[in-house]
């Protein structure tokens, strides 16, 4: 079974600007991968190449084994652009019907009703898009991307216009998609979102994947804090496995131990460490590798 998205050695040059400098990335079937990186890092370019909207300068991008941009690849994906607009004169239901026709979906009214319910817009199916709030339009955009039951969903900043409640809805939706086996590449700036829903994270900086792994692996342990009667003591190089020995040593030395905490770096720390250092190529397998924190 080919990966939902397989990218290797991908480069893109706009004149003198190198947007991508050899990106390798894969998204497995039913996997939810977060794409992080500063503005201008090349995230949207990568997503657009996967969609066939932008042609790569070199390298390969495949969707479910088909070259990106081919009809087979486009038939296997759903996409929500960062800057999108739908025809304001159409209703939500009409928009989904149009995309059903273009996607060759035979889901009919049942599929449209299911998708609108999934994004919490059942009541707005006959409402014109121009009268919807930006958040409603963004949720409608996700429903539109799901028309035709795509194997891979490419979401470019899907929660940028949503309030906290809307973001929670989308997080629940992403979890539901994973349960259904839909692979998702989520391009976002919201680290908390990635931390909560993604199986893996790839951090892109200056056109390169500079770190990749699961959110928990990227957020590595930074030591052990022990609260004793004489104050908090920090063992910076220690890991979870060292905790029994540390406690035993302290008790043996006559300390009274009240609390022990394993201190982890946050994904934010990992992100900042990865993007602050000079960019170097990085393969993006499932294993954790960090450049900045090494």
């Amino acid at each position, binding site marked *: 079974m080919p990966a939902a998205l397989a990218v290797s050695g991908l480069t893109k040059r706009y004149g003198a600007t190198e947007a991508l400098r050899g990106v390798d990335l894969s998204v497995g079937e039913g996997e939810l991968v977060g794409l992080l990186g500063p503005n201008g890092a090349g995230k949207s370019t990568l997503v657009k190449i996967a969609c066939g*909207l*932008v042609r790569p300068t070199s390298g390969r991008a495949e969707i479910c084994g088909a070259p990106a941009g081919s009809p*087979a690849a486009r*038939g296997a994906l759903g996409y929500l652009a960062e800057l*999108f607009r*739908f025809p304001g004169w159409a209703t939500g239901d009409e928009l989904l019907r149009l995309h059903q026709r*273009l*996607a060759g979906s035979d889901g009919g009214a049942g599929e449209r009703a299911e998708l609108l319910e999934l994004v919490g817009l059942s009541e707005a199916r006959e409402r014109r898009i121009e009268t919807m709030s930006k958040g409603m339009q963004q949720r409608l955009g996700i429903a539109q991307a799901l028309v035709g039951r795509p194997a891979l969903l490419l979401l470019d900043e899907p929660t940028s216009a949503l309030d906290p409640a809307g973001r929670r809805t989308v997080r629940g939706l992403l979890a539901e998609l994973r349960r259904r086996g839909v692979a998702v590449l989520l391009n976002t700036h919201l680290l908390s979102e990635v931390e909560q829903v993604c199986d893996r994270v790839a951090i892109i900086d200056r056109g390169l994947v500079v770190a990749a792994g699961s959110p928990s692996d990227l957020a590595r342990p930074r030591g052990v804090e022990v609260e004793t009667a004489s104050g908090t003591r920090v063992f910076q190089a220690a890991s979870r496995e060292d905790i029994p020995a540390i406690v035993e040593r302290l008790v043996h030395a006559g300390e009274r131990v009240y609390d022990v905490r394993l201190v982890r770096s946050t994904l934010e720390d990992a992100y900042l460490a990865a993007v602050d250092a000079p960019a170097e190529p990085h393969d993006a397998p499932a294993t954790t590798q960090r450049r900045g924190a090494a």
Partner: protein
Amino acid sequence: MSDVLVVAGHALRESLRRRVFAVVVCLTLAFGALYAWGTSELFEDLAEFGPNDFGLDTRTLAGATILGLAMFGTLFLGVVLAVFLTLGAVRGDAERGLLQPLIVRPLGRRQYLAGRFLAAATVSGAYVLLVYAGAVVVTGAIGDWWPASPVGAGVRLAAAVVVVAALALLGSILLSANANGIAVLMVFGAGLLAGLLGSIGEALDSGTLQTLANTASWLLPFEALYRDALRVLVAEIPGVTGAIVQLGPLGGSHDAGALFYPYAVAYLAAVAVAGAFAFGRSDL
């Protein structure tokens, strides 16, 4: 083919729901009313003229002249409609974020272009035929003058608008909506101006002006189609009346020649190939 029809239907539905057609119908009715009024006044004045010594058929002269004017007006309105239906079809819609959700579907870029062209050509071509037919009927009903070959002239006029729609769609791939609208209308104006210069060149027997007009006709075939439509309109009018009406009110009649029609078809095909190539290489 079904994808092409889906895109064409979507474009037409947008125009319908945006009330583009309602505005067009209202303005066209106003144009028709003014034309009917002017025609009525013209033929009333004509009744005051008695027989003349020059062999001039004043009814034919008035009818052919005012219908020629109506053809120019119809062409202009049809071109405006074609341009507004296509000016932002690619770059304009891409800049607004409307295009990307459609293009990532299995639908190909060529099918998208074909759908947009089909919608614009059908609407603007049908519009021109309807308005032209209305002008013929108004001229005949009020002035009792009917052209000998009304259908041939109308078809050429509609074909001219279809060529402009194709150029506007090609321009929409390369230029932003505003720049494209301005460029296409300026090209249209330049083409008509070249045709007028050609008419003047024929009257003054100026080879340079005629060469200029002929070159413009090959580069911009809508201009040649328009002047050929005028030729068909007045071709069978004999004598001095025929000689006068062939000079035309806005661009004289001109025989495009037998080779021109296959050339116009090849021209449209070349525009389609250029559009597909340019759009296929565009990053959106």
